[in-house]
């Protein structure tokens, strides 16, 4: 179990943030939230989470911009990114992965699958 590993959830939908937050908290992760892309980059820079769960469709700065921002910054470029998005078109998946996302899941999602993917990413980066 990755006790206390920090995970940043970035999603403009508060229900999704709270739902995923509750799931991760119940599995002993330290959960932080950001409601938009700009806040995500700010929090990621200061917090240096072990992983970021990132939505793609957000106001102001979308998920693709956030991946770019994270990869441009030496301090955050190594943080694994798991995309959790309603976008299910192949071109969006390919674009996210090409920009540097480490994994991609579509909403609606299976809770156990999300946990398994998070564990795999944290295991790999750790």
């Amino acid at each position, binding site marked *: 179990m990755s006790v206390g590993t920090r995970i940043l959830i970035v999603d403009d939908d508060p229900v999704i943030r709270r*739902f995923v937050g509750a799931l991760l908290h*119940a599995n002993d992760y330290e959960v932080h939230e950001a409601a938009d892309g700009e806040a995500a980059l700010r929090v990621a820079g200061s917090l240096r989470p072990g992983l970021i769960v990132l939505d793609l469709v957000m106001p102001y700065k979308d998920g693709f911009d956030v991946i770019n921002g994270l990869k441009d910054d030496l301090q955050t470029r190594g943080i694994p990114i798991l995309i959790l998005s309603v976008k299910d078109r192949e071109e969006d998946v390919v674009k996210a992965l090409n920009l540097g996302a480490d994994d991609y899941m579509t909403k609606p999602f*299976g809770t156990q699958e999300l946990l398994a993917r998070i564990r795999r990413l944290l295991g790999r980066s750790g």
Partner: protein
Amino acid sequence: MHEVLIALILGTGLLLAGLTMLIAGNKTSREVREALDRRRRSLLEPAVFQYAQATGHRSIHDYLPKPLSRRDRRLTERILLDAARIVKGEARDRVTAAFEALGSVRAAIQGLRSHRWWRRAEAAERLGLMRSRTAVDPLVAAMNDPEEEVRIRAARALGIVRGNTSIRPLVRALADPSRWSAIRVAEILISVGDEAVEELLLAYDGLPHHARVSVLDVLGRIRTLKAVPLMRRSLKDPHPDLRARAAHGLGRIGDPAFADDLLAALRDPEWPMRAMVAKALGRTQAKPAIPALCEALKDREWWVRANAGEALRALGPEGRDALIRMLDADDTYARHQAVAQLEEGRIIDEYVADLGSADPARREAAVRFVEKIIALRRVDRLTQQSIENTQEAVRSALAQILRRSPQEGS
């Protein structure tokens, strides 16, 4: 007179003040209710999420305060509806189980019997979100509701609930155009996807003609290989529109293995069928279809020629070479269709660019190609390029060829 006026002003003032107080009171009461709901929701939500994310057999009631007030029940239902759109799999099944345990499914089923049609429509929609199998029979009954909106929401709900018992009435609805929009029902069946295929195939032979057209269309759009035997058989159906739908469906599924069946169908006596087959051959990416598609460029019907041309263009370099060869065909229709497709595919532009190439062989090939295009009177784009092309060498070469080349029929 003054007294009447003063009374009138006072009366109006009092009325306005009363109305203002009423509106303010209403707003305050609504805000208070919403604030209480938010506060209560923040207490209930972690429990509901914990239930949805858990594994095991504990009921939603084990996670909620007891006794459950009407407000708590309403808020819990709202939280469950939010969770329902986020999760799938086991967590989604637990959400459905919670709706059943809380009595929400039963209440919504009762809502289907409301005297007000919008309540019935809302109930049908909620039952779809709840995805409870116990709602299937009432939803099937609601498909006979006198109000169309209720019928369509019940159909949509059945599409979400899925399972054979849900799909069967949707397939039957395709057969009753007096009560159903076939397009809307077809969209629902397409959204169901693979799970609808078996019922569609089973029902096909017993359906009237117009419903069979819809079924072939739905199966093609689901792109299921299970429908291939039916579509192959339907390519030889006595009804031309069923043959055309089958060809369209095979094209959407897009396997080159269908090329032989489609090639045989390209000789169909009905031109709409030939047009559909030509289009389908392009989608299957079957290279052996190229000679037959070249022949189809000579068809007497414009749609057949246009679809055959597009199909050749879709077949990559081999199709493009075939189009170029067809510039020398003995059939005027075929030559003109080939040049139209080469222009549409910007292949003419590629040759025009080669007029400025440093390689003499490429330049010579480009000159011969452009001369053929001019001979076929397709000069508008070439004339435009001779003025606007960014390369001086291309502009002057084009202008020179345009001046000296004769045009077909001139």
